[in-house]
């Protein structure tokens, strides 16, 4: 059986729900619809169904534990090619070995899933630190990121806890999705038409400069170590860091 779904996590879980009812041994391929249509056209198209999805994830969480559920979600968010069948295998294995999933750690596919999950959570942790908000004229905080994995939904919760009294948005310019928080509710949405000319608040430039100044003066020259810095803070993140783009003024 060939399945197609919309590329979202609930969509994937709906496929799992359907596959469970069709018989898991018949699953041959699960495809992301966005990746393009398949050659034969005989696939079952599954629309995402929140009830189905939540029943799968709830029972997975209940039976296989929160660590396994966390691993599954984070590994999915790593958005690796061909992830669906491997994750499907992970779910089946976890249900088969309830309470003893750690036995399966020797399985290379399970290891693969855990590796993906680890990569995503590492990047989450990194971005929590490396994300930089800029204050817009209306007082909203706006951050641009370009992460390797789809982490915007994963880190948004951290900022709702941290900045509940602020209006803020985190924009993933690679995937065109954003998390927006309006002091009450969090919204994760697609951005189809990004706005270019942003008005920054009048103090923004001042604080940026102060931060750059601080960044420069806190380093000890005698201990300079560019390699160490790069290993902690890879250069791919630099274009979005206030302190590394010190010489550029705010682009409007």
């Amino acid at each position: 059986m060939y399945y197609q779904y919309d590329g979202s996590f609930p969509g994937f879980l709906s496929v799992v729900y359907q596959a469970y009812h069709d018989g898991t041994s018949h699953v041959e391929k699960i495809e992301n619809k966005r990746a393009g249509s398949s050659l034969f056209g005989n696939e079952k198209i599954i629309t995402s169904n929140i009830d189905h999805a939540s029943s799968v994830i709830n029972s997975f969480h209940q039976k296989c534990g929160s660590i396994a559920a966390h691993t599954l979600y984070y590994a999915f968010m790593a958005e690796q090619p061909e992830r669906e069948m491997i994750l499907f295998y992970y779910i089946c294995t976890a249900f088969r070995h309830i309470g003893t999933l750690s036995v399966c750690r020797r399985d290379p596919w399970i290891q693969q899933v855990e590796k993906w999950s680890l990569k995503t959570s590492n990047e989450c942790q990194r971005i929590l630190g490396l994300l930089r908000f800029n204050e817009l004229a209306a007082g909203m905080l706006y951050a641009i990121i370009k992460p390797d994995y789809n982490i915007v939904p994963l880190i948004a919760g951290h900022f709702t806890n941290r900045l509940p009294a602020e209006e803020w948005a985190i924009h993933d310019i690679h995937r065109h999705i954003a998390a927006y928080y309006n002091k009450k509710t969090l919204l994760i949405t697609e951005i189809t038409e990004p706005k270019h000319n942003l008005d920054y608040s009048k103090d923004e430039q001042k604080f940026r400069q102060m931060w750059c100044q601080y960044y420069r003066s806190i380093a000890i020259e005698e201990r300079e170590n560019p390699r160490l810095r790069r290993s902690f803070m890879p250069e791919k993140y630099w274009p979005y860091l206030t302190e590394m783009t010190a010489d550029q003024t705010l682009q409007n």
Partner: protein
Amino acid sequence: MEIMEKLKILSDAAKYDVSCSSSGSKRKNRINGLGNAAPSGICHSWAADGRCISLLKILMTNYCIYDCEYCVNRHSNDIVRTHLSPEEVVGLTVQFYRRNYIEGLFLSSGIIKSPDYTTELLIKIAKTLRLKENFNGYIHMKGIPGTDSMLIYELGKYVDRMSVNMELPSESSLKLLAPQKTRSAIITPMQFIKNKLTERQEEKHLVKYVPSFIPAGQTTQMIIGASGENDRHILKLSEALYKKVSLKRVYYSAYVPVMTGKNLPALQVPPLLRENRLYQADWLLRYYHFSADEILTADRPNFDLSVDPKTNWALQNWHIFPVEINRAPYEMLLRVPGIGVRSAMRIRTLRRFGNLSYDELRHIGIVWKRARHFITCSGKYYGLRRDDPLLIKKILLSQKNQIIFKQFSLFEGQV
């Protein structure tokens, strides 16, 4: 003076403070306040020297009545002096924090008038941040030696972590380099904080709500290489501090020769490698069940700078090795060079379900090129020399320095 200028001077003066961690506190965001603390800590940036920037590390003022010889802010040094007002500190912290530049504030200060007076100013800043600005981010403040205990207690209510600096590893070098500071003035506040923290632990069982007091514990810092103590002395001191005043961390700071003084050593570069070895040994103390006496024995009081302390220990205790990975107790696994806490735990879980094979072992996350000389897997030894620790040391070093064994030249000595 412009605030920009002040920021430059006072952060520059604070850069020799090592500690910049923001971990250990679970402070929650109070209703519509600003910020919270992340228990694991978050690094926000890394400076050009590769050290992480987690907190806004700054001095309240660089005026100082003390004249410690190693310190840039010493009384007799001719530098520009300035101070930040409480409003300026608070404003900077809040604005930086909102923009996710920092995880909180690390405020230290030169001593003006008296330790008590300076601490009162620090308390004022901490109070403004917590009560007026409703700031729940991380605050780390310096406990100043010689401060009254009640003031320390008052400050402790608002901060997450406090640190009283050891400065130098022995009483005699304190006397030589920082004559106005004494060992007892430094130990007393540490001891006081420790007692209060234990009291709190006990109270927690009895009452539901205990007001906050330094939830992330206390740390200290000492300068390495400015005085003549050997490594064993320093490590024993750290061990005692961990045990007796239950510090969270001891920070070591390689002495950067910025000052010249008659009692200071004439160094060209800071002893960075020595500092690194001390940190490695410190980790062995805290996470690997080592004791200071094992790491450095009385007849070898200094580190072998060429290999890390754990490998060094293993080579000196060669009769224990190699250990069988499928049988060795967890504590022994921790002592194998190349196996860390995580991989030791992973080995412990996996071997419950059957013997670990070579292939599985390779994928478990241990540093194979180091560990293989010290272990057997199902009885088979994968290292190069089972009988000769000296040769193994050579092999490890040649791998590190990328020197492959030199091939004999047929025409040696000829041009």
